């Protein structure tokens, strides 16, 4: 139904936690989420195996949530563990932070205790300049620097509020408080879209019951194993998702942690997408009346094939997927079957084969 996935090209930019690659399409890039973790403008560094995979999954889920809420984003699709395909955007050098509760620099700047709820979402602007330490800006500063027109900043703030609202309720359903988040924007053909990532690296997420911090503050302040917090966020978001079809959420959530660790062990080379041929067989459920099969059976018997006891008619589909590994291809196909390809009320599906196709990128 959609366009074929473009080939991965050369490295365009290597940031602190992500690398951006060109593709065979001028309007799309591949974003690779790496395992590097940095804080305090790069002064504290670590590599956390599996973080990239978790952040790309979480980002994909949250970008989709924004799209559902009518907030445009640069997200196109997931390509595999740690890889997403995105629209190429011209990044606005201005970060928007939306805060729902006091935390971090706001607490230090205003002397308010962390965790105090704010009576309204507070919007802050930051200048995206590593060499200056990403300073906070007001609207006059933005005009003086000529970073973006007033109308563009207005629109960014509006989109940021809507994004915050959508993510607040998504996290609330997962039993998580969204304390604050940082958004970056890009321009795609004159349209503002939410770009960069939406992950525990760029937002604060606290367990609603215990107040435990699940985000990058674990790393900044040495509060506990970083990956566990990120895994909790992903598994809760997936469990609270309606995307996986009936009964799928919990199962996916259980798998997520293990998959992330496995993916982390895979070398960088293995994570480049390959093409997989997946065959799916969809049949009427056992015991379900199959009028088509019955008619075909009667036809065969009328032709003299008296040995025909039963005929069932189903569907066979051949998919070509561009993904990093076959297990992920199978997992994605199962999800597609549950969500669209089969109707679980009357049909059952089977993934009959997953095999590598020629023509690797």
């Amino acid at each position: 139904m959609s366009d074929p996935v473009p080939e991965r090209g050369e490295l365009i930019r290597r940031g602190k936690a992500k690398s951006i690659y060109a593709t065979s399409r001028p309007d799309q890039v591949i974003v690779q989420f790496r395992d590097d973790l940095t804080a305090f403008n790069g002064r504290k560094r670590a590599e956390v195996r599996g973080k990239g995979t978790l952040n790309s999954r979480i980002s994909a889920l949250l970008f989709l949530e924004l799209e559902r809420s009518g907030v445009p984003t640069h997200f196109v699709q997931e390509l595999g563990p740690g890889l997403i395909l995105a629209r190429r955007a011209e990044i606005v050098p201005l970060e928007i932070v939306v805060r729902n509760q006091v935390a971090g620099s706001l607490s230090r700047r205003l002397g308010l205790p962390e965790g105090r709820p704010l009576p309204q979402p507070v919007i802050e602007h930051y200048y995206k300049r590593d060499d200056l330490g990403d300073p906070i800006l007001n609207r006059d500063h933005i005009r003086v620097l000529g970073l973006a027109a007033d109308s563009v900043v207005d629109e960014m703030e509006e989109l940021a509020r809507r994004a915050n609202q959508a993510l607040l309720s998504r996290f609330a359903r997962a039993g998580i408080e969204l304390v604050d988040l940082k958004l970056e924007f890009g321009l795609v053909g004159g349209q503002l879209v939410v770009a960069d990532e939406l992950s525990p690296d760029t937002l604060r997420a606290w367990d609603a019951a215990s107040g435990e911090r699940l985000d990058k503050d674990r790393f900044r302040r040495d509060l506990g194993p970083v990956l566990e917090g990120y895994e909790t966020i992903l598994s809760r978001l997936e469990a609270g998702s309606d995307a996986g079809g009936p009964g799928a959420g919990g199962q996916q959530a259980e798998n997520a942690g293990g998959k992330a660790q496995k993916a982390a062990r895979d070398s960088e080379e293995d994570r480049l997408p390959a093409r997989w041929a997946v065959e799916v067989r969809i049949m009427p459920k056992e015991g379900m009346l199959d009028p088509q099969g019955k008619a075909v059976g009667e036809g065969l018997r009328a032709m003299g094939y008296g040995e025909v006891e039963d005929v069932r008619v189903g569907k066979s589909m051949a998919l070509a997927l561009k993904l990093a590994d076959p297990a992920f291809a199978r997992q994605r196909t199962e999800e597609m079957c549950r969500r669209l390809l089969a109707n679980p009320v009357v049909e059952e599906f089977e993934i009959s084969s997953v095999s590598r196709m020629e023509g690797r990128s």
Partner: protein
Amino acid sequence: MKCAVVVFPGSNCDRDAHRAVVDGLGEQAVCVRHDANDLGDVDMVILPGGFSYGDYLRPGAIARFAPVMEAVAAFAGEGGPVLGICNGFQILCEVGLLPGVLRPNAAQRFVCRPVHLRVENAGTPFTGRFRPGQVIRLPIAHGQGNYFAPVEVLEELEREGRIVFRYCDERGNVTSGANPNGSVRSIAGICNRRGNVLGLMPHPERAVERYMTSTDGLELFRSVRDWLMSSRAKAVTGDARQPATAVDGRPTA
């Protein structure tokens, strides 16, 4: 009263539905495209019959991803009346707004003829003008109207009075002979738990004028109007359904 008729690629009863509301009922109707993000200010939504997206994969399976369906789901979530006719019923089941599925007719044939229906629940927003047990007559025209749901779902539908119409003979007897497509328990139409989403295979919009040989369909549309007017009267503050909160708060520079 204003009604939105959703038009998918392949819908073919949208004009009939529009006409039933405008000419039959004497109310307003607008056609809303499948790629619209909102329905506008309407009081009712109709998902009309047809073959949206060519019935590819399964009837209704692709239509559920049309952008407009999010607005329809939100409208239903706020309690607004949503009527799915034929393909519209199939879409409502695929979206999950109604349980179950419509399978190919048991006889493997497209069926196009008037049928009798027994009104099983006259307490829904769509059936207020009928008596419980009343026999009405509406046409059907479908190849896949064979309703099926697992037995526990059927029990729940029975218990909660959500089976709204059953196929019957002209005296109101529910018999296998009067069942045109093999539907389980002769089900012709069901509603959601709240009662504001109805799906049915028969076509009420094709029974709204005398020359159509039945005007029972018009009574269904009139029932919705009655219900809208009485629920509006009941609402303490204006419209019972509040629009989504508007986002404002742009800073005054």
